[in-house]
């Protein structure tokens, strides 16, 4: 009996530690400006696509609205704002990176704008599993001060295989078929959305979220590489 108790304790301790092994930060320590400035509305800018996948931009931009809305901010409807920006000749945010953002406050009334760069959008097909690897770089900038309020740099890997279909050889074959079918249909919308949810997990909640202004001490895994902090 004792032997097992130790075993369970051991596993618990290990699993706790393994969860803490990556660098943890609190939202307040990492993004103090979010709590100071309290932006209420966010304008999503058309993403910059540096990946080799041509349709990554569409996947990303049409699946970011929903997860971002759940963080509690007023998110300007992307289908409208992207069209207005297109009329102004802005197809992606590359040209805007070093410009003053006060124009977005004047035109849209936005408190902050979201810059995103898709670094990688890779689908890998294997016999038994397929994965979608998304590497993105997001920066939320204030339209008042041009400062970075929140940022995320990281890689999200989404498993595309069709869940667990049971063990044994038959299970494996079924799974291989399911994977093949899933990849063929190429419906990555839910996966792209899931990748976006994951990327947004460290953003402090906005005014429409019940946890607004209560999440200062919430910890998250800090994925920002130390070398990137300077920019």
């Amino acid at each position, binding site marked *: 009996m004792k032997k097992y108790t130790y075993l369970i304790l051991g596993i618990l301790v290990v699993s706790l530690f393994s969860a803490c092994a990556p660098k943890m930060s609190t939202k307040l320590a990492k993004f103090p400006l979010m709590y100071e400035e309290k932006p209420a509305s966010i304008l999503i800018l058309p993403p910059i696509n540096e990946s080799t996948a041509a349709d990554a931009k569409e996947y990303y931009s049409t699946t970011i609205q929903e997860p971002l809305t759940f963080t509690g*901010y007023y998110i300007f409807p992307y289908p409208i704002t992207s069209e207005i920006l297109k009329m102004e000749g802005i197809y992606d945010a590359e040209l805007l990176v070093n410009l003053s953002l006060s124009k977005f406050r004047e035109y849209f009334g936005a408190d902050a704008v979201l810059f995103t760069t898709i670094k990688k959008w890779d689908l890998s097909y294997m016999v038994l599993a397929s994965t979608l690897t998304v590497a993105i770089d997001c920066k939320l900038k204030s339209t008042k001060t041009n400062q970075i309020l929140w940022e995320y740099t990281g890689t999200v890997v989404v498993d595309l295989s069709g869940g667990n279909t049971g063990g044994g050889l038959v299970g494996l074959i079924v799974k291989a078929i399911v994977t093949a079918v899933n990849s063929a249909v190429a419906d990555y919308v839910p996966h792209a959305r899931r990748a976006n949810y994951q990327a947004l997990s460290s953003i402090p909640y906005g005014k429409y979220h019940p946890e607004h202004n209560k999440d200062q001490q919430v910890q998250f895994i800090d994925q920002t590489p130390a070398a990137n902090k300077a920019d």
Partner: protein
Amino acid sequence: MRKLCLGVLFIVFFLFVSTGCAPQKMYYFGNYSKTLYSFEKNQNEESLLKHKQELETIITESESRNLSVPPGIYAELGYINFKSNNFKKAIKLFQTESQLYPESKHLMDRLIQSATSRNNSSS
């Protein structure tokens, strides 16, 4: 004995998993991302109609579930009406968005102004 341990492990594992996916009940979004993607990918009458219907479903579903309609939904529906020259309906929807989410007022006023002048010149 072994079974008991496995059981405990299972429960621990389950707790880990379940805390990660607590359902969010702030808004109802239906198939929004899906129909929007289809429309962006193939812009035609059919995909536009599907997305429009999805927006209408989100409004009625949100009401029946006692949730607020998510930001942008009324505005987007208004914009679709605007583009198919239903200016009066568009103005109404822009106003609803503006009342529900004051953050949108600035942009909605712009759109209402534009819809009003288009409506006056067409009638």
